[in-house]
């Protein structure tokens, strides 16, 4: 018997052959006594194992066996890695990783702006701002409670518009 044939015989026993191959092996078994004998031996061994896996009982008590597992669990990971709700810090970290240096720059500028406004208000320093309309300028001093508004007349934009080019 060739190796390939014997392995096919075994695969036939284990139900691992295609329908056509299984038919061929069944026909071979019907006419070859040696193949039939080998098939029977394999079948007996398979059946003996299937029904009789050796049974074992743990030689340690439940408490003793568990205590080592518990100790290792507590040492390595206190709880299963179930996805936990993301903390604000984790969220910020993820955002920074995704959007890169632009976010870092934006956050830094925003923080700086907030800081300067806060310091100004605290020290009672004057603030300046340009008006919504072109040509106005506002000066506010918290300490003295005064506000000055400059209005350019005529407005600089009007001058520019009325100037005839050379």
């Amino acid at each position, binding site marked *: 018997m060739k190796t390939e044939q014997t*392995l096919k015989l075994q695969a036939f026993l284990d139900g691992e052959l295609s329908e056509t191959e299984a038919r061929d092996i069944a026909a071979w078994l019907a006419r070859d006594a040696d193949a039939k004998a080998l098939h029977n*031996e394999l079948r007996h061994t*398979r059946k003996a194992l*299937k*029904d009789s*896996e050796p049974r074992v009982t743990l030689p340690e008590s*439940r408490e003793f*066996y568990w205590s080592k*597992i518990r100790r*290792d669990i507590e040492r390595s990971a206190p709880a299963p890695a179930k996805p936990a709700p993301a903390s604000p810090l984790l969220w910020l970290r993820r955002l920074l990783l995704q959007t890169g240096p632009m976010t870092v720059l934006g956050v830094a500028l925003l923080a700086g702006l907030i800081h300067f406004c806060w310091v100004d208000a605290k020290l009672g320093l004057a603030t300046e701002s340009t008006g919504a309309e072109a040509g106005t300028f506002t000066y506010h001093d918290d300490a003295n409670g005064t506000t000055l508004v400059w209005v350019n007349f005529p407005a600089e934009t009007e001058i520019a518009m009325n100037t005839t080019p050379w």
Partner: protein
Amino acid sequence: MIDLVHSSADDTELVRNAQAGDLGAFEELVARHRDKIFGRALSMMRNEQEALDLSQEAWVKAWQRLNQFQGDSSFTTWLTRIVINLCLDQLRKQKRRQTESIEAMEEESGGVERQMPVVAANPTERLERGELRRRIDRALDQLSHEHRTVLILHEFEEMEYKTIATTVGCSIGTVMSRLFYARRKLAALLADLKTDH
């Protein structure tokens, strides 16, 4: 002390609770399935201390990976796969440290099994179940770990050739050849044991 709340729950409920961080539920799962997991490790390693260590390691790994368990198979099937993989890793490490025996090399190359005479009578016929288990255990002890592993995965874990090949990391042809050798050798060993008695 027996925890009545957990001991009355089924595996699915215990796994769900353990996934939420309930260590008591996990302890109950360990109590229920420890013999089976230890037994699988022992059948593969043939060494009680190693089997104890690896089975405990499997439980720790199971706790750490509990969120990966989706319930596609039973919890015990999932856990058995973990312990099998740990045993295979350990056996590979041991094999690297050892020089292969000539016999093992012959077994790997094939051909030995074909020279064995066919055992005509069923050597396990009319044997009492306990006695049959003991004989099978002794016969398994005499196989190389490669042959024993394939036999265990096929007969006890009911894996198909393809799954065994993936688990063990070899070709389907190697699985078939190892399984064939293991069965033939086991038949001969069981026949010898019958004659001895």
